[in-house]
Structure formats: C-alpha cells, structure tokens
C-alpha cells in the first residue's frame, strides 16, 4: 500500500539522483531536473538524500494516501491542498490513510517534488529509480504516472522525530528572470568574439520547447566563425548547444549522451535548479565564470546543504 494516483497531472515521473555509469553505452542519466529542491525535500523528511521522489511538471497530480505517511513538497508552488485545505511547501506533513493530496496549476516555478518519508518501493533498474521515458525503463513501469497507478511505500513513517524543525521558509522559484553562471567551452573557439559577447550579455527567453531533454531559448543570434556542426562529442547536463539558428539550447536531465552541435558554454551545476524552475516566457541571462570559481560556488552550496541537514535532523 502507498499512494493511488487519481489524476496524473501534466507529466509526473519517479526520479532520483540519476542513472550513472551507462552513458558510454548511450544511456542518458535522467534523474531530477532540480537537484536542490529534490535534496531538500528528502532532508526535511530525514530520508537518504538520493531517495526517489515524484517530479511533477507544470500541472501537479492528485494522489490518495492508502496508508499513513509523512510527505513533503518542495520546488514549484502548485497550490497544494490536503483534503481541500491549503498546505505549505517545504514542510513535513502527515498524509493520513484516505487523505487526498491535490496539486494544481503551477503558480511559481515549474517543477514540484513530492517526497515520502521512508521512500517509494520502486525496483532500481541499472542502479537507479529514475524514469527514462525514451527507453521505457526505471521509475514506475518505465513511464509517466497514470490515473489508477498504485505506488507502494517502502517503509512509510507515521511519526518523525524533531517534527518542529522540519520546515523551511525557502521560496526560491518566484523570479521570472534569473542569471545563470556558465563556464565557457568546450567549443567557444568556434564562435566569433562578437558571438561570445552576445551570449554573455543578451537576455534570452525560455520558449515552449522546453522538456526534460533540453531548454530552447529565443533571443539574439550567436555568431559562429564557420558553422556549428562538429563531429559528435560528449554532452553534460548544462551544456549550451548552439545549433544553426544561432539560438541556445541548454541540455537538461534527459539529454542524449553525445551531440553534433558546438557548445559555447556549460551552465554551472549550482545554477541548473534555477533554470529547471523556469516557465516559457521567463528570461535568463548568462554570466561567464572560471572553472575554479564554479567549483568554489559548488563547495559553498554543498556546505549550505550540510548545515541544512544538521539543522533539520
């Protein structure tokens, strides 16, 4: 027994930290789009930080608890209600057997994370519970949730110690414009100086073409020296490809492992959650940072996570 899906929402999938170790065989990593919200949701429940959760995009699901279990919602604000009553985000709450948790249309941000204390009982495939929609593996039967699905809990918890500490006043998805720091390269030399300047100074708009694979941006065209086609090489989460149109595509969690467009820069890992929470119409700009600076920022973020974990558990 666990939760029954009443309404699946727009795209609700089971995700964890991702499926590593198989990219050399052509398997995308998948995993959550917003790693920060995902980790915080699990930490607030005292879960392992990589415990699988539900990721809901744009329009959230309605779920019915089949047994008592604590849960927590982070990331986007989808106006969650428990049995019709508004409930706060970033707060550990008890879902009683029979209670209906309802998420609606997104009001701030783009992706919400629903974590359950003790986790979901999902068999890992190739070391991960993340849903890979293209290959139809992982998560719940290799697909997005549908009405009628019943996903069991693994070790549902109806009590949590230090409950009074298990909330957080973070609201970080509300901005409509974000600055994404990015390390130039690997193929920045295929672009003109003017092209690189355009990329790091202009504002870009998130288009409708935004899914778990990539985020296509609209804005000033980036000038290349002599074309952007390369013999395919490896891609990471955050790679910024510039196709022939001259408009950037940021590769996201489900990105293919290799690609044949030149990559002007790579968004730093710490800033990817900000992009994961943007909706079409929101705007982004890019700021160049060195690798050393990017890694200093990553260490700072990790230190914040450690403090947060200590403070809540």
């Amino acid at each position, binding site marked *: 027994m666990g939760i029954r899906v009443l309404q699946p929402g727009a795209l609700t999938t089971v995700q964890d930290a991702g499926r590593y170790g198989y990219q050399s*065989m052509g398997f995308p990593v998948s995993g959550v789009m917003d790693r920060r919200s995902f980790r915080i949701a699990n930490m607030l429940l005292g879960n392992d930080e990589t415990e699988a959760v539900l990721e809901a995009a744009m329009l959230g699901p309605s779920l019915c608890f089949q047994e008592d279990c604590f849960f927590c919602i982070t990331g986007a604000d989808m106006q969650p209600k428990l049995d019709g009553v508004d409930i706060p985000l970033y707060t550990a709450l008890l879902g009683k057997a029979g209670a209906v948790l309802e998420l609606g249309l997104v009001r701030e941000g783009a992706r919400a994370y629903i974590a359950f204390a003790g986790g979901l009982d999902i068999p890992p495939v190739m070391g991960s519970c993340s849903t890979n929609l293209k290959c139809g593996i992982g998560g719940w039967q290799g697909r997005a949730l549908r009405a009628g699905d019943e996903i069991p809990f693994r070790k549902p918890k109806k009590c949590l110690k230090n409950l009074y500490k298990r909330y957080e006043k973070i609201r970080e998805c509300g901005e409509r414009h974000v600055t994404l720091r990015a390390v130039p390269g690997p193929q920045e030399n295929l672009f003109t100086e003017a092209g690189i300047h355009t990329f790091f100074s202009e504002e870009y708009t998130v288009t409708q073409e935004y899914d778990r694979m990539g985020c296509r941006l609209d804005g000033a065209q980036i000038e290349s020296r002599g074309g952007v086609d390369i013999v395919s090489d*490896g891609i990471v989460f*955050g790679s910024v490809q510039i196709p022939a149109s001259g408009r950037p595509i940021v590769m996201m969690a489900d990105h293919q492992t290799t690609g044949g467009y030149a990559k002007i820069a790579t968004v730093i890992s710490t800033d990817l959650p900000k992009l994961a929470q943007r909706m079409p119409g929101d705007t982004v700009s890019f700021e160049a940072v060195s690798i050393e600076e990017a890694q200093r920022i990553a260490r700072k973020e990790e230190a914040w996570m450690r403090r947060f974990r200590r403070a809540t558990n």
Partner: protein
Amino acid sequence: MEDYRILNAGDGAVCVEFGQQIDDAVNARVNGLYQKLFSHPIAGVTESIPTFRSLLVCYDPLRIRYGKLIRLLEKYAADIPDVVEGERHVVEIPVCYEAEYAPDMGHVTAHTGLSAEEVIALHCGRDYRIHMLGFLPGFPYLGGMDERLATPRLKSPRTRIEAGSVGIGGSQTGIYPLSSPGGWQLIGRTPLKLYDPQRDKPVLYKAGDYIRFVQISKEQFLQMEKDMQRKEGV
C-alpha cells in the same frame, strides 16, 4: 608534441579531444584512454564517455580538484598503450540473413551488383571496430565496412525496425539494439538481446571492442530465440 587538447565542460567534466574528424587512429587513442581509466581508475572520476574523437571525463569536484585531474589526465594521455592485435576483444553476433529477416537484401544486391551470397560473405568477412555507442542505448557506430557493400539509405525511413536488425546505411553497417524508426537497408537479424536493462551487462559490447557477424540459419535463429525465452522464464 601533444596530440590532444583538454577542453572545459563545466564544473564536473572535461573533454579530452584527440582530433576533429572521424579517423581510426584518433579513435584508437580515445578508446586507449577510456580503457586506461578502467584499468587505472582515478578516484573522483565518475564515468567517461568515448566518442569518435574525444573522451568526456565526468568527475565529482568535491572529491578531486580540477588541477589535479588535469595533471593526472596529462600523465595518462602521454602513456596510452597501443592495442595489440592479439588483444582485440571480439564479440560474435550471430545473424540470420534469410529473406524473412532481410527485407532490403534485394536493394543491396541491385545497388552493388553482388549476389546475396557475396553480400553475406563480405559482411561476415571482417571484424568491425566499435568507435562509440550513442544515438540509441547500445547503438554501435561501426567502422570498416567493405566499400563494395555501400548502399544508400532507404528513401523513406521505416517507422519501426525490429530490435536486432542488421543493416547498411551508406558506407556504414550497424545493428539496432531496440526497436526504433530508421532508414537503413536491412539485410539480417540477430536473435541476441543486444540490450537488456535487467542483465548485469545491459549492453553486450563497449566502445573499442570489435564485432564479428556470424551467419546462422533460420532454424538456428529460432532455436536461439527459444532458448533465450526459456532462460528468461526460469
């Protein structure tokens, strides 16, 4: 002089680039470094992705500093062992070339002027190097097909190609690990499950290995298929 460049790929990866074109010697260097990272793992390196011409090395910056990683990769790149012929890792793929599994054999014989027997003999007659896997999980980009077999792709791609199909697309040959749309000329099929997420090794081969196609009859094909289903049933 060094024959590679180390390019920045964000705060958790670097790209070791050995060339800009598709070239056997370049790819041998890529896979040499890839192998070396297996035989001599660097703590903090999480995985690496070989392509035709470069190796993407992913790492955890909290476990290894960028500077140290670069120094180690430079050391590794300076000492990539040449793969000796005898050490080739060859994966045999049984293929049935009979009509039922070879809907496009007629196109290939018509285009090349060869008989079906000659096509099969040429196709089985050599080992193919796996340059990289990509496009689909487990899809091998193979090098070195006999030029006499080259046949253009179908004018309009099929919406579904069965898993295990063996085909020719231009001057390349390949196998489809899972069912997918595609435009290759299909000349046979393997009963092997090239890709199985439940298996210890989800894909039977890796970049740098060689693939050898071995002709089997339809009876053998059906028997192997049956044996595998039985094994799965247990």
